[in-house]
C-alpha cells in the first residue's frame, strides 16, 4: 500500500497467483477488456515466444475520488512455470492481496496444492503472515470435462474466511466477481 497525501492517492497491489496455465493472464486480459476505458492503463505482458508469461502481466485501474482519496489498483500476474519461481517472489513484493487462480482439472490438483504451498513460502520469506494476507480463491476452467467437484478443490485448497468463486475465465464467467471480492477485502483490511 502506498498513500501519497499530497496527491491524495491510495495505491494498492493485487497479485494473481496460481499454477502454470491456470488462467491468470486470461483473467487480467478479460478485466482489461471489460473495464471502462477511462479507468485503465495499458496492459503490459512480458511473454516468451510461446506466449507464456515470463516476468508478469501488469495493468493499473483507477476509480474516482472517494472522500477526497483516489484509489488506484495495480494488478499483476505471476508466471506459473516452476522455472520462474524467482519472478513469482519478486512480483509478490508489496502485495496487498492475492487472487489464487486454481485449475479445476483433476490432473492439476497436485500442481494447485504445490503452488499454494509455494505462495505461502514466498509470502513468509517476504515478511508476511500467509494466513493474514487478503486471499481470494478462484476455481477456474469449470467448463472442462475433467473438472473435479468444487468440494474436492475446497478441501485441499480453500480456507475459512477466504472468498471463493467458480470461473470460466476464457468466457469471463466469475472473473469480475473475483476481482471485486479481492478489492473489497483489501480495502476492508486498511
Amino acid at each position, binding site marked *: 500500500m502506498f498513500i501519497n497525501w499530497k496527491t491524495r492517492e491510495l495505491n494498492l*497491489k493485487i497479485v494473481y497467483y496460481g499454477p502454470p496455465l491456470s488462467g491468470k493472464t486470461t483473467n487480467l486480459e478479460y478485466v482489461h477488456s471489460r473495464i471502462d476505458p477511462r479507468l485503465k492503463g495499458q496492459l*503490459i505482458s512480458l511473454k516468451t515466444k510461446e506466449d507464456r508469461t515470463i516476468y508478469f502481466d501488469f495493468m*493499473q485501474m483507477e476509480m474516482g475520488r472517494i472522500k477526497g482519496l483516489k484509489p488506484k489498483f495495480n494488478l499483476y500476474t505471476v508466471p506459473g512455470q516452476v522455472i520462474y519461481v524467482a*519472478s513469482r517472489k519478486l512480483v509478490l513484493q508489496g502485495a496487498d492481496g492475492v487472487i489464487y487462480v486454481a485449475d479445476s482439472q483433476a490432473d492439476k490438483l497436485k500442481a494447485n496444492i504445490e503452488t499454494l504451498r509455494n505462495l505461502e513460502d514466498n509470502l513468509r520469506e*517476504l515478511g*508476511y503472515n500467509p494466513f493474514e494476507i487478503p486471499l481470494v480463491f478462484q476455481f477456474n476452467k469449470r467448463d472442462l470435462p475433467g473438472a473435479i467437484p468444487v468440494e474436492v478443490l475446497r478441501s485441499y485448497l480453500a480456507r475459512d474466511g477466504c472468498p471463493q468463486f467458480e470461473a470460466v475465465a476464457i468466457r469471463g464467467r466469475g472473473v469480475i466477481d473475483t476481482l471485486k471480492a479481492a478489492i473489497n477485502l483489501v*480495502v476492508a483490511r486498511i
Partner: protein
Amino acid sequence: MANGLFLSDAQSAKIERHLIHLHSRAQAICTLLADISGQLISAVGTAPGTDSVTLAALAASNMAATAEMARLAGEPDSFSYLFHEGKERNIYITAVGDTFLLVILFDHSSQIGWVRLLAKKMALELLNVIEEIQEAEESPGTVVDADFGQALANQLDQAFEAWD
C-alpha cells in the same frame, strides 16, 4: 503483513523538488522514483508514449532480475545501476538504498557520464529524504472506513457494468 508507505504532503513535495532538480540538470525526458515492488512514488516530465506507471513496474522488475544475476555471478552486493542505450533514447536506473530506485529517461542531448554523476549524487540525497519518512500524521483508517468501502464497491459495479 509487510508495511505500507505513507508520504505526507511535505515529504512528497521534498521528493518532487529533488526530482525536478535532477530532471532539469540532466535535461531528462522523464525522471521517476519507484520502490522495488514497482510502485511509482513520484515522476517528473512526460513525453508522448511515456507511461511512468508502467515504466516504474518494468524498471523494478529489471532491477530485480539484475540483483538475481549479481547473486549468480557471485557479486556480494547487487549491481548498483543499469544502463540501456538506444538509438534515440536511453534509460539509466540506479538503486536508492535497498528498497527504492531512480529511473532517468533521456536522449542524446545529455551525456551518460553527466547523467550518471547526477544520479549517483541524487540517489544519496534521496536516501536521506527517504530515511526521514515516518508514518504520516493522517492514518488511512481515518478516511478508508465502511462508507469508503461501500462507495468503492458501487464505483466498481459501474466501472464494469457500463461495458458489459
